[in-house]
């Protein structure tokens, strides 16, 4: 059984078809890239997978369960977490709190326990603190733990957002342009980091990326979107040589030169 199965997924905004009949198969442990020009529908696809939009048609099955129509928090609890193209942290809260909050659904106690500070409160809070500390150390964010998230340097904000997503214990992690705004050196570091991440947390990764060196160097399989349609699927080599992909990126070949 595939981890994620998408069938004939379509989405429209008003009269605009943002996505049309998308089919995808993601196996456990895959590292998949989603590329395409601006406005191709990549982020819309993520928003559908995480339940932020409800599709017009089609089905999404995650670990065999149909997740269309489930609210985002339930989908997260099933094991899909994501990051955002324009980082969405809890800006005025500390790095520490950002990570603590993301453990909310799997490490918690009742409202009564909270209000009366009953014994489970201290036990669970200690567990939360331990995992938070562990994650911050793994992601090199320890030195920033008392800083407000909004005051972190850009690269650290990106890393914090990934760490926060992992604190929610996903099996499938969706990364929306993790390399945006990074220089080639940082992008190379990110590549190594993502490989490590995937192994360390036994994740399946789906990433939207514009940086071709990253996508081609990292992903096993690539989905190419253009104007809401899936125009190619394949290995990096296959996709690079696909005439439709070349056309989408470089424009149509002009054959009839006027002499």
């Amino acid at each position, binding site marked *: 059984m595939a981890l994620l199965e998408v069938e004939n997924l379509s989405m429209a905004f008003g009269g605009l078809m943002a996505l049309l009949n998308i089919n995808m198969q993601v196996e456990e442990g895959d590292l998949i890239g989603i590329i395409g020009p601006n406005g191709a529908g990549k982020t819309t696809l993520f928003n559908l997978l995480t339940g932020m939009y409800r599709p017009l048609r089609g089905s999404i099955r995650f670990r065999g369960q149909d997740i269309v129509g489930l*609210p985002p*928090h339930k989908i997260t609890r099933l094991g899909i977490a994501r990051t955002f193209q324009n980082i*969405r942290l*809890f800006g005025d*809260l500390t790095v520490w709190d950002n990570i603590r*909050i*993301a453990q909310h659904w*799997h490490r918690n106690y009742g409202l009564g326990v*909270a209000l009366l500070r009953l014994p489970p409160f201290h036990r669970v809070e200690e567990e939360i603190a331990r995992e938070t500390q562990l994650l911050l150390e793994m992601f090199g964010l320890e030195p920033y733990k008392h800083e407000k998230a909004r005051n972190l340097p850009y690269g650290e904000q990106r890393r914090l957002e990934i760490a926060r*997503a992992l604190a929610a214990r996903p099996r499938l992690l969706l990364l929306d342009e993790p390399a945006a705004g990074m220089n080639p050196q940082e992008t190379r570091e990110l590549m190594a980091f993502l490989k490590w991440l995937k192994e360390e947390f036994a994740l399946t990764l789906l990433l939207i990326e514009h940086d071709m060196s990253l996508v081609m160097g990292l992903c096993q399989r690539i989905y190419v979107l253009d104007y809401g349609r899936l125009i190619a699927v394949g290995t990096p080599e296959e996709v690079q040589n696909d005439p439709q992909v070349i056309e989408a990126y470089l424009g149509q070949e002009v054959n009839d030169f006027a002499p």
Partner: protein
Amino acid sequence: MAKGKYIFWRLVALLLPYVLIQGLLGAGLISDFQQITLMMMGINIILAVSLNLIVGFTGQLALGHAGFMAVGAYTAAVLTLKIHQPFLLSLILGGLAASLAGLLVGLPTLRLKGDYLAIATLGFGEIIRGILNNVEYVGGAAGLLGIPRLTTWTWLYGFLVLTLLGVMNFVNSTHGRACLAIREDEIAAETVGINTTYYKVVAFSLGDFFAGLAGGLYAHYFYLIQPSSFSFFRSFDVLVMVVLGGLGSITGSVLAAMGITLLNALLQDLAEFRMIIYSLLLILVMIFRPQGLMGRREWSLARWLEKRGEARGPAGS
């Protein structure tokens, strides 16, 4: 800092205001006017802290706190006055009634993202007043008269401490942090697995519970409650306290509630000047401290003792 010593100071800080005022009351050193101001301070602190939970911590603008206070006040007053129930039970049922009203208003509006709650609560406050004005059982526009004066300094202080502890415990728990997350970024909150509707409703009805409690205490102090005591202006007054103290600071709400109550009392003789001075003060604070007096910071006894200890040199233990 030794733990025993910390608990000792905590108890002192908790009991000192109570014992001091109780002593002064017993010795007859507090005038009636001062006593009214004092009681209003307590009630306003409960109102401001509970509204801060909704507006400051969860980020949901609510403009009908007086309406929920009215629900609590009338419920508790009817229970003691007409059905002869014990005071404590009536107060708690008043709080629960307000909380239930909060659920009714909150459930449909808090499912949506955006400021629908502000409009709904604004309407709710006026509807409640409209209903109370027309129900003969609770006296209509003339109000309920002859409510037994059961709210003493001891009762008030007890509920004040309970409110503060309850709100502080809530805010510093996984549940409170879920609310903070919603305030910061609702979309990010749901993508880490937080049921945002649930927490918005919880924070809102918990805040309304305390507003209802404050209403019950109010009703049993002033003998008389009228629909006009719970107008939009009271909701607005409480909101001003919250904003002035700092959205998201319990300490700030406490300080601002005390300050504004005092100011209202002092300016009572000035009649029309009162509103001018009041507005001027607000404008000045918003210019020089737009984040409110405390911002989002809290004053903590433990930290204060630690700092004092450091200033004195290393502690013996």
